[in-house]
């Protein structure tokens, strides 16, 4: 039971990040290495608002998430928009530079110390033999709710329709009167806001540190590729699969925790060898 809980928590965090990553990939066709940095920014911003500005942690989070979303849009406007149509390699290297700069901005402002949110320590609840804290239950519930909202947005709104159309064929979407640049902005906003949410959840679960975004980059990419790059539902499934794989590997197969990223990497290599298009194939939004 403990394995299931731990896996679900991990999957919730990975899933939120993987969905954002895969959406940006789907529209702009490049692997955004700066994506997980927004998780770090989100966590630190919420921390700033709650412990320095005196807001409650939850209010701080609610403000931080859209702010990070806007930051994502801004980043696209200032940097990535100028490189539309460049080779994916150029975009990847650029995103790496962005991630390096942003991560160190955080480090310059807040230092490298490990911090944590000012929340009371909850006692774990015993459910069917596994321990889980109310915060952790909250993390899983929030991730599921957000994914459902995302699904409704994608399929039952005009915006979702134009997002799917743009993903399918940019020129066709433009010809049908969809402002694709606006759609791209919305996708950046949602993607980076999701990342911020994931970062805050990770911070609530454990701690906040400048490396947290970078440390999770390999599992997030593995989950994304596992589900098929560009496929948000695949990304969710990939995150779930990876969450379980990591925790089962550590608990049942006694893989040393130090090698946790190696599990993600092993699965990544395996998937790339067997099914490069991921378990759900390439289907776009």
């Amino acid at each position, binding site marked *: 039971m403990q394995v299931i809980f731990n896996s679900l928590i991990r999957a919730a965090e990975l899933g939120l990040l993987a969905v954002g990553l895969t959406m940006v990939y789907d529209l702009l066709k*490049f*692997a955004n*290495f700066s994506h997980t940095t927004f998780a770090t920014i989100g966590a630190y911003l919420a921390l700033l608002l709650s412990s320095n500005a005196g807001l409650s942690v939850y209010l701080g989070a609610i403000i931080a998430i859209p702010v990070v979303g806007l930051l994502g849009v801004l980043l696209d406007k200032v*940097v990535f928009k*100028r*490189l539309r149509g460049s080779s*994916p*390699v*150029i975009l*990847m*290297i*650029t995103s*790496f*530079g*962005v*991630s*390096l*700069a*942003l*991560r*160190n*901005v955080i*480090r*310059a402002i807040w*230092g*490298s110390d490990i911090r944590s949110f000012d929340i009371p320590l909850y006692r774990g609840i015993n459910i069917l033999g596994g321990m889980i804290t109310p915060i952790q239950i909250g993390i899983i519930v929030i991730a599921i709710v957000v994914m459902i909202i995302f699904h409704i947005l994608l399929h039952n709104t005009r915006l979702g329709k134009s997002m799917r159309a743009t993903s399918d064929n940019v020129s066709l979407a433009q010809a049908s009167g969809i402002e694709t640049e606006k759609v791209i902005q919305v996708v950046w906003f949602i993607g980076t806001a999701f990342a911020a949410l994931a970062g805050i959840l990770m911070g609530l679960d454990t701690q906040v540190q400048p490396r947290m975004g*970078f440390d999770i*980059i*390999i599992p997030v*990419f*593995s989950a994304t*590729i596992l589900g098929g*790059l560009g496929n948000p539902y695949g990304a969710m499934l990939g995150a779930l699969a990876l969450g379980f794989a990591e925790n089962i590997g550590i608990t049942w197969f006694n893989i*040393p925790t*130090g*090698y946790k*990223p*190696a599990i*993600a*990497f092993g699965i*990544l*290599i395996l998937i*790339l*060898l067997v099914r*490069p298009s991921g378990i759900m194939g390439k289907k776009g939004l």
Partner: protein
Amino acid sequence: MGIVNYLAHIGIMIGIYGILSLTLNFQYGFTGLVNFGHVAFFALGAYGSTLLVMSGGTHFLVGLIGAFIIGGIFGLIISLPTGNLKEDYWAIATLAAAEIVRLFFVNEGWIYGGPYVAGPFGIRGIPSPWSNVIPTDVYIFFYLGLVAIFLLITYLFLNFLSNTPFGRVLKAIREGDDLPKALGKNVFSFKARSMGISGAFAGLAGGLFAHYVSFISPYNFQAIETFIVWAMVVVGGIGNNRGAIAGAAIVQLFYSSTRFLKDYVPIDSKTLASVRMIAIGLLIVLVMLFWQEGLIKEKKSEYKNKLKRVSHD
């Protein structure tokens, strides 16, 4: 340590990173392989040579040869599962592979026995070669010469390779797999060999590094090193060997000179370290945005001349 010695130190670092940027440039600039895990070769070379010399008791040169071989083998190994991948998958796979290599050295302390050594503690007291014959006060210049020789060898060899039929196939692969495939070239094998050759030289750089600084730990080989080398390649000019060395010099000079900034500006050393990294990140972004050809453009004109000659024949 006088100013001259400090310049020699910077020179050595430029030489070592110059080899790294030459080899990364060979992978990306010539073959089009987006290697985001270049530091893995550096780490393997450094540890390989250190262990050979310290545990195996071999000579420094044997250690370097070991570093060369280990780097080369790792280049081939990493190509096996990933050789046919598209560039974005390749980038992720290499990034992950480098992290695994680092984790190996963090977790596996047994490779070099003793309490509080190896693993996260690192290995200290790595012997400097020929330090018993060369007087201490000129040793740093001797090592500078040594590094310069290896840099020159790497440069000449990679330059030579890029003008051979082998090198031309690599450049064709860079522009897309289809054309070389249509000409009956085994793209996979060429990519693997490109990784093997450049990996071997990058391993050599690792060996030179370890015996120079005499202390290595997994913290020397974090992903950040890879991006510093990337900054060198893009600043110098992608696909140009002289550019790669020039880029290494510029980034390293910037990196070394800003270290003393804290003596003049009220800033603590931790913040300064972050600010330097911000500058490197911004440098990569700015070069990609406004100056993609970098300092020295790739020489493409000679192909035009050759084509003319061919058409006249």
